[in-house]
């Protein structure tokens, strides 16, 4: 049975004022999926993520998050969507003047009326989920890059979101930390049933975690392929996808 989409885009155009980077983007992300937005550098992956999270407006088209037309949504509806979404930024984006516990507690203090003791318990649990139990009182500057990303993930998970967006989660991490983060993403998806949307061009991560994907093609300024990344590698629909997924191997028609 086909799962209900948690995010759906129809003929979406993204970019900045007066400049369209990608157009006619149509895709559906089913609930509980791990969805990869992939493509070469500068193709507009991060712009798409910024559009989907409401940081910049879409230039044309429509998209629905949790069944709500995001572009027509009221401030209250957008706030509600924000409460059900978590974002892990490339650098973790932790507030450097706050401890890890304070960082994770921030969305809880903002959106819930929990008492401080309850918040403290939730924070300890979320940090434990990402393997940072006991690091509550550390500042971001006192931990490694990989740990910062995991702490950022704990903050993104603070409100038990239905969707978590990841912007280049493996960027700047060594292969082992990168693999550990991929494993964590899989665990979070499996355990909490969270829909994961990942913007990346890291091939090992794409193949390890991706259940579904879209490929943003710079040459045609739109999606040129979609589906399971491993399937796309076996049956590449075009030259760009093949070269991207094989790190630039020469494409010949019928390549398998």
């Amino acid at each position, binding site marked *: 049975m086909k799962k209900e989409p948690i995010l759906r885009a129809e003929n979406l155009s993204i970019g900045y004022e007066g400049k369209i980077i990608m157009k006619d983007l149509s895709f559906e992300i089913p609930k509980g999926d791990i969805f990869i937005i992939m493509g070469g550098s500068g193709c507009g992956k991060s712009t798409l993520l910024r559009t989907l999270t409401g940081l910049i407006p879409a230039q044309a088209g429509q998209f629905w998050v949790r069944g709500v037309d995001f572009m027509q949504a009221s401030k209250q509806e957008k706030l509600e969507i924000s409460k059900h979404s978590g974002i892990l930024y490339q650098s973790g984006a932790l*507030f*450097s*003047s706050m401890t890890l516990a304070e960082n994770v507690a921030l969305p809880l203090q903002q959106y819930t009326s929990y008492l401080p003791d309850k918040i403290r*318990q*939730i924070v*300890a*649990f979320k940090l*434990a*989920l990402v*393997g*940072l*139990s*006991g*690091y509550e009182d550390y500042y*971001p*500057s006192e931990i490694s890059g990989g740990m910062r990303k995991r702490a950022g993930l704990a903050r993104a998970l603070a409100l*038990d979101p239905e969707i978590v967006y990841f912007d280049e989660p493996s960027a700047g991490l060594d292969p082992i930390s990168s693999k550990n983060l991929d494993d964590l993403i899989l*665990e*979070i998806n*499996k*355990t*909490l049933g969270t829909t994961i949307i990942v913007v990346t061009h890291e091939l090992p991560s794409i193949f390890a975690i991706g259940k579904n994907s879209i490929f943003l093609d710079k040459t045609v300024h739109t999606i040129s392929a979609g589906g399971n990344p491993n399937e796309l590698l076996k049956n590449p629909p075009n030259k760009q996808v093949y070269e991207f997924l094989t790190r630039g191997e020469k494409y010949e028609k019928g390549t398998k």
Partner: protein
Amino acid sequence: MIEIKTEGNSIICIFEGVLDGAQHIDIPLAELNNKKIQLIGKNITSWNTDFVILLFNTFKNIPKDHITYSQLPEGMRQLLRLALQTAPKEPETAKSRPPFLERVGGWGLSVWSSIKKGGLFVCGSVASWGRQLCGKAVYRSKDFWLVLGDCGPKSMAIVSLISFMVGLILSFVSAIQLKTFGAQIYVASLVTIAMTRIMGAIMTGIIMAGRTGASYAATIGTMQVNEELDALQTMGISRTDFLVLPRINALLLSMPILVLLADFMGILGGCCVCVLFWDIPLAEYIKYSVNSFSIGHFLVGILHGLVFGLIITLCGCYFGVNCGRNADSVGTATTNAVVYSIVWMIVMTGLLTVILNSLGV
């Protein structure tokens, strides 16, 4: 509902019905030690994450091999496994406060290290200026013009306004006192001497410390955060030549002009008050102002301006270059740049006053 029973060396917790985190698991900590814990779910109708958080916080310090929860519902079990998979980090032992003498010694060493660092930075900047005279310093002229534009023309409006107001206040306050002797005409002399000798330079210095010094520290500090300073170093380009030198040149060039402007605007402010409020004729005010104007006072003001310009640039750049690598540090660097600029300006004013007085200027 939660049922807790002890069987030999095991504590068995049985959970039933609705589990939403509102429950309490009352097991004394002492009893948990060296006992096996068994968590069992029976006829659970519903549960949520809050209940898993309760389980986690109750049992997080139990060694992994002492707790079994295989008889809990699938989702709850997985969530608990994920949370308990990493043993909590051992808390670091709190450092004891060092004895008084050690703290004083530590403070002394850090002050000495700051003085040394500051001294080296000043020497480096002087050397860089020397290299410039020999044509060996590397910086882009474009940077110099950009900085000059920012600290020169763009500062004129604020310097004019503040100096005008200072002249106005000075004139008002002094006229009230001088009026009692019928000597309010001397307000013109007082404002002219005060503005040209020191007030113009001090006001310009304070404005520029807040405006330009802070901007230097923030800009260079952000470059430190973005690793741009490291990039300069690895390219073999001197940070002092590339970043400090154009700023020193720009402020040394713009400060005398700004001080001149401040002097003029201050005198104009005084004039407005005298003419409009104290019925002193404009010609009289100008006559007394011109009579009391001395080139010596004016040059002293310009000298102060040059020294203040140097202090502002050095403080701004020093705190920028020595900034940490996070957002907080940039804030601290900016604050320090302004505070230290003002403190050093006051110190240098005192020193210059003593020196110039002893020279009879």
